[in-house]
């Protein structure tokens, strides 16, 4: 058992080592699953961690692959682990320099759906955050243009939440063609 642990520590990815050294207090959990480092960080420090990941010259996660969210309301184990935070905002990052990926997860409680926008760090974040807002209703503070992107502007509800039915709430049958401004 001890030997195994030693081997693990030797091959610990650089990103985990550096995060532990610099942002240890923000890390809620960490894991390495299937070659990707996964870290769960506190919402308040999420921006700082992401900024660090991008700007640190040794890490240089300059490519924001994806921003999305998961509604954990039907995932009991996740809810228990992260203090009943309903949503988990997920950032996938890639470093061209190190050719490696990291996944940053940020728990977001339903009663406070705001989180700092990372549009200032990566321009790619703009639409990805808009989509997450559209689909989950998570509010990205400081986003320059937080509007719906996939659904029409007058749409109500957030389709990818678990309490939204697959067939919708009758939006596809109701139309007021006079009102629509195409």
């Amino acid at each position, binding site marked *: 058992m001890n030997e195994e642990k030693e081997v693990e520590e030797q091959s610990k990815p650089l990103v985990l080592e550096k995060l532990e050294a610099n942002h240890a207090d923000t890390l809620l959990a960490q894991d390495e699953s*299937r070659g990707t480092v996964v870290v769960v960080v506190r919402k308040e420090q999420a921006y700082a961690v992401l900024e660090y990941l991008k700007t640190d010259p040794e890490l240089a996660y*300059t490519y924001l*692959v*994806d921003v999305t969210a*998961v509604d954990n309301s*039907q995932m009991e184990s996740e809810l228990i682990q992260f203090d009943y935070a309903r949503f988990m905002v997920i950032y996938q990052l890639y470093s061209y320099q190190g*050719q490696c990926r990291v996944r940053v997860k940020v728990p977001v409680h339903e009663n406070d759906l705001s989180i700092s926008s990372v549009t200032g760090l990566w*321009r790619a974040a703009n639409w*990805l955050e808009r989509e997450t807002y559209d689909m989950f209703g998570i509010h990205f503070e400081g986003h320059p243009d937080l509007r719906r992107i996939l659904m029409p502007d007058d749409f109500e509800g957030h389709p990818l939440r678990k309490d939204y039915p697959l067939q919708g709430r009758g939006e596809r049958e109701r139309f007021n063609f006079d009102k629509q401004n195409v």
Partner: protein
Amino acid sequence: MQSGLERATGEKMVLSFGPQHPATHGTLRIVLELDGESILKATPHAGYLHTGFEKLGEHLDYNQYIVVTDRMNYLSPLSNNFGYVLAVEQLLGIEVPKRCQYIRILMAELSRMADHLLWLGTAALDLGAFSVFLYSFREREKLYSIFEKTTGARLTTSYTRVGGVLRDLYQGCEEDIRQFITNFPKALKETHTLLTRNRIWMDRTKGVGPISGDDAIDYGLTGPCLRATGVAHDLRKAEPYSSYDEVTFDVPVGTNGDAYDRYLVRMEEMIQSCGIITQVLDNMPDGPVNLEDNKIMLPNKSDAYGHIEGLIHHFKVIMDGHGVEVPKGDHYCATESPNGELGFYIVSDGSGTGYRIRIRPPSFLHFQALPHMLEGGMVSDTVAVLGSLNVIAGELDR
């Protein structure tokens, strides 16, 4: 858009480009703010083809969802099938037999060629070169017939399965493919003759819609659009999946990141795909195609109909809670689709249906970067730039 008009000192005009416009290939919309013919501001709008793929992933089981992936990037459904099952397999922790990996590469590369051919035809059509459209569809029809013989469908192939593929290659498949790739470079040369040194084509694409490598990375561009800027990044090389590390190929890169370079990169990628296909055919291993695991793979149809064991296996795999059960956890798997990085992020709660399936489409980020390439250019460049990006609405809006 009102504020832009109020600010205007000269005569400004707002032009709504799409969603129904011949150059938007369906459902893209860009609102252009023009000063004469130069573009001051471009605002792309997405969502006109939003279908709810990600929501469907929470209701269909892992094998049923393959059908949905076909309809996402409908120029190259085989690549989507491939990327999706690879993500599920990695989450399951299984690896398919060598022969299956080779067949998947073969099909993925053929579909890369099919994708680039259609892109070539329509991009040229938008700029007025109708013959290229006819030429590229002539080649695409040959690919269609190979796909149809292999998978049973021209377009919506649903060829892969979790743990394998639908069926082995048909008899005579190798000859068909070899014949196609022998003739293909000649056919592509015709297009080169028509376009590559064509004065009109060069004037309309060279220096049009340029983007630098750093900006491209910042905007999250991938695939040919990124490589045209000079960044030699290809997931087939950077993170070799399936058996891509066993084939050799070059990654073509451009220098200026303009529409012309994107054209050249795609043209060269088709030739490289031919090389990969030759290697795959030469080294195609024998042996089983599908994973021999009754918990994951459906039995052959003849077994399901003719033997009681086969029928029970079939039943067990199909029934919810008995078949493919993916262990709890999450995984992000990216593949190099013809358009760029196609990623599937799957969260599993341990059942036979995904808890959340997130698709990371390349087109979404390409379309987002469009204003960066358009602003400051001329209104007629819009068509050239949009064509060069190959934004697929199905993938953009999901």
